[in-house]
């Protein structure tokens, strides 16, 4: 009977560990599962195996996962790749927001790690605690329940018309709010520009930064551009990390006061 209960506990711990969202909880759960499994080995008349499983599975394996994670010393940024703001250049990350984030990480003594994701996934990642900061041409939308920093750079949301047909946008972007329901949505801006060029959609709602990029690279030839909304690029912070938001806002205010922000904007935006 005790054996059956212990087996059930072992399985429950394994399922608990593997259904978590946070890696830290997963690692701790797998450690506890190893310890319960050692008890199961005792019931199976295998004391040698039980001792080894307890020492290795609970001690060494948990330690090595925790050392590899080191989540406390790290700031995880879930980002959309955006030219000028945050993008991968060869093997390095570069851009205005990266400059700000890496300086901010330096100030907090935390390393900054970027995780590239589609725009639509950022709110879920922040809410689940898988990322601390969301970045990359981020605009607030209703119902996302994210903490937002001070504006970094003012911009505009515009509608670009290239031909007849429906208007598209990037899934999860602010532009989606201005489309009628059931419109075509794309995973990222590159896919949207591609669709625009091939004529799958006749127009797009996007921010001025991306539109300028499309026009300059000759990818898209707009026939007509109309303003939709004044907006600003911001950084999003996970709802549980209010102290990070306060520190970030203070840091941005300081950059603005000393004029460094203006310098950075000139350097990266031309």
């Amino acid at each position, binding site marked *: 009977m005790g054996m059956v209960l212990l087996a059930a506990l072992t399985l429950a711990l394994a399922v608990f560990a593997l259904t978590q969202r946070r890696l830290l909880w997963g690692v701790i759960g797998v450690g506890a599962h190893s310890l319960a499994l050692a008890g199961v080995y005792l019931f199976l008349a295998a004391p*040698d195996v039980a001792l*080894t499983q307890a020492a290795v599975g609970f001690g060494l394996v948990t330690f090595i996962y925790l050392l590899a994670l080191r989540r406390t010393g790290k700031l995880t940024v879930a980002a959309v790749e955006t030219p000028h703001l945050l993008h991968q250049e060869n093997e390095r990350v570069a851009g205005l927001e990266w400059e700000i984030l890496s300086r901010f990480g330096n100030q907090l003594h935390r*390393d900054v790690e970027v995780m590239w994701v589609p725009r639509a996934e950022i709110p879920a990642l922040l809410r689940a605690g898988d990322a601390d900061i969301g970045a990359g041409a981020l605009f607030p939308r209703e119902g996302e329940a994210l903490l937002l920093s001070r504006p970094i750079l003012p911009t505009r949301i515009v509608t670009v018309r290239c031909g007849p047909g429906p208007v598209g946008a990037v899934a999860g972007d602010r532009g989606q709010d201005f489309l009628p329901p059931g419109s075509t949505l794309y995973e990222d801006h590159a896919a949207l520009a591609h669709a625009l060029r091939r004529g799958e959609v006749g127009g797009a709602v996007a921010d001025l930064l991306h539109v300028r990029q499309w026009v300059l690279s000759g990818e898209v030839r707009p026939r007509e551009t109309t303003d939709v909304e004044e907006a600003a690029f911001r950084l999003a912070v996970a709802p549980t990390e209010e102290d990070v938001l306060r520190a970030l806002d203070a840091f941005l205010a300081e950059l603005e006061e000393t004029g460094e922000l203006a310098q950075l904007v000139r350097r990266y935006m031309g």
Partner: protein
Amino acid sequence: MKALAAVALVGLMVLLALGVSGVFPRPAVPSGEDIAAEWGAKNVVAAIILGVRLWDTLFEILVYAMTMVGVKLGLRLLRWERPLPPVAETPLLRRSADLLLGPIVVFALYVAVSGHLGPGGGFPAGAILGTALLLLALAKGVERLSAEIHEPTLEWAEYGAIAAVLAVAGALLLLGRRGSAYLIAANLLIALEVGIGAWVVLHRFASSRGEV
């Protein structure tokens, strides 16, 4: 994709269930008492690991040592941009490490030495030893400890432990000696090898900012 994965999983589970159903016959094995008496042990598992299946164990140790070398080389290839800020020292952790270290090491030695009489043996003893050293590293700070321990010595100790295990095995095979003294020596050497290997890996992970 998910449907395919589900089908594969069900197939695997059916295969495992078939394994226990008794369809496949079990090979005949000499009785545990005979093996234990032959090798001068009370723990049959120890007699099998260090006696009957010695080659298996030796090559497992070799795999372990090679993996450790792989980890060391792999982490050495990584370039880190910025050194980690120093970790704040906590008196509580330090005191408890001072208190616990001795008993843990003694327990590890006990587990290794009594491995042929009761539950235990070289592998769990080595794991306990590695955990104890890691506790020490956490309490004292990895940088300071590695400065005290002098890492090349440590690496030589690890390779030395492998060489010693091979030497004992070779002597056993050449002389045909079987007895509890051999089992104790082999268990101690395996504990040393596994413990030092585990500590080298954990130390590498901790000091080279192994963040993921």
